């Protein structure tokens, strides 16, 4: 059994405190900022301010500890987000760089075709490199165009230079050595089996360009006849036949720039070093010249 007095007392207490709260609320809400309760509140805050300041300082290490823990969690989440962002941006950057590289190489090939001495009417077919020789010799690549695109064995292949914006827009890269319906294999001019009849421009000295195997940035021009070769001159295909078979390379395709000339003791025999215009280390896009030029001059390949 409940004592009625207790019940009444309890209810009265509740009613009193609720009424007090509502009265306080009403009074506070109804008065202006300078009213009694507002002033009382300000005074109380001023009075308790030192206690709160002291407590705040005392609890700062605890807050810092929790803050550190919270920051650590936030940092982990942020780290995950940033990692995802980095992955996304890396992918975007890779796409952009790939596109830029393709554009650069295509620009180089276009520039090469527009060169004054470049053979006309060759109907170049642009192809993408889909495989590369895994050895350090850089001797062959596979392209994504084949016989169905008009590509045939022994057709010359051009590649862009490393910097098409410079004068070296690209040059001879090799020749097609085998063809299937949709692909073709290209043997590069750095392969030991390749030799190209070449001519130094404008002196007219002729010779045969062969690779310095193992160094794709160095070609050797041997059997040089017709005059002294000087550095920084251009070497292009001569279109001469140096073999009994059909000549392959049309006249006027740039091969490289003379980088060094070695003379023997009697200065008769010259050994000319060329730096190829085509960037043979990193070819992505090539052009296959699918038609012979109208002029009859072509160069040949030495069969080893």
């Amino acid at each position: 059994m409940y004592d009625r007095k207790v019940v009444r007392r309890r209810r009265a207490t509740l009613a009193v405190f609720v009424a007090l709260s509502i009265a306080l609320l009403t009074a506070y809400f109804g008065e202006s900022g300078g009213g009694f309760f507002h002033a009382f509140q300000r005074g109380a805050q001023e009075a308790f301010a030192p206690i709160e300041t002291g407590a705040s300082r005392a609890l700062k290490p605890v807050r810092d500890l929790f803050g550190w823990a919270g920051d650590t969690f936030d940092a982990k989440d942020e780290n995950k987000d940033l990692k995802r962002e980095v992955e996304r941006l890396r992918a975007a950057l890779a796409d952009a760089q790939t596109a830029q590289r393709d554009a650069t190489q295509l620009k180089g090939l276009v520039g090469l075709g527009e060169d004054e001495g470049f053979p006309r009417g060759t109907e170049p077919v642009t192809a993408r490199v889909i495989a590369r020789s895994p050895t350090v010799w850089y001797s062959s690549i596979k392209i994504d165009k084949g016989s169905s695109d008009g590509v045939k064995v022994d057709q010359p292949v051009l590649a862009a230079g490393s910097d098409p914006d410079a004068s070296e827009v690209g040059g001879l890269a090799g020749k097609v050595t085998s063809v299937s319906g949709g692909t073709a294999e290209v043997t590069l001019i750095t392969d030991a089996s390749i030799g190209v009849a070449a001519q130094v421009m404008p002196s007219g000295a002729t010779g045969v360009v062969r690779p310095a195997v193992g160094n794709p940035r160095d070609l050797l021009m041997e059997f040089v006849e017709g005059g002294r070769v000087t550095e920084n001159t251009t070497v292009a295909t001569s279109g001469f036949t140096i073999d009994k078979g059909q000549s392959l390379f049309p006249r006027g395709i740039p091969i490289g720039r003379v980088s060094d000339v070695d003379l023997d003791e009697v200065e008769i025999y010259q050994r000319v070093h060329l730096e190829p215009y085509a960037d043979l280390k990193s070819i992505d896009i090539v052009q296959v010249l699918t038609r012979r030029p109208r002029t009859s001059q072509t160069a040949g390949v030495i069969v080893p």
Partner: protein
Amino acid sequence: MILSPGAILRVGLLLLLAVVLQLSGLSQLSILGGHIDLVVLVVAAVAYYGGSVSGCATGFAAGFLLDLMSGATMGVSSLVLTAVGYGVGRFREVRDPSHGLLPLGVGAAATGGFLVGFAAVSFMLDVGASVSPLVIRDAIVTVLLNTLLALPVFTATRRLLRPALRVDPLEVRRRRRPPRETGPLGLRGLEV
């Protein structure tokens, strides 16, 4: 609870400590979006051990102190905490609970009730802006944090108020334990 000057002083100091801790430390600790609400837990603990009258008086005092020191609209916290203190006190009086883990549920319910009541009063008064759904998430986190903290707060409050308590729920629980069956067979049940 025996309303002696000593008990009132103890509760007053406890409330002051809780409010200062709340304003100077705990309110600034954001844990997963929520924060610990110590004042509610203290009010609930006092009401749990002291009953409804002590509960609503403590709730009013705590709310008054909280509004006073925080600069909030005076009367809002008092009103809601009065109701919370009364509710917890009545629960204790009507159900006469004695389970050791009950403070967990009481703390959670008191916190939830306070948050809902405070939101309701605030809505009725001066909140005209749209409210983000994140408020609900923060409220849930606060309830969970307070639930975790309920046992130590209730234990500390009980120890502080023990001299002034008419009935200690833990003592009631101890008295309800079955007698130990020890001693010779013939004396079992006689608590020898």
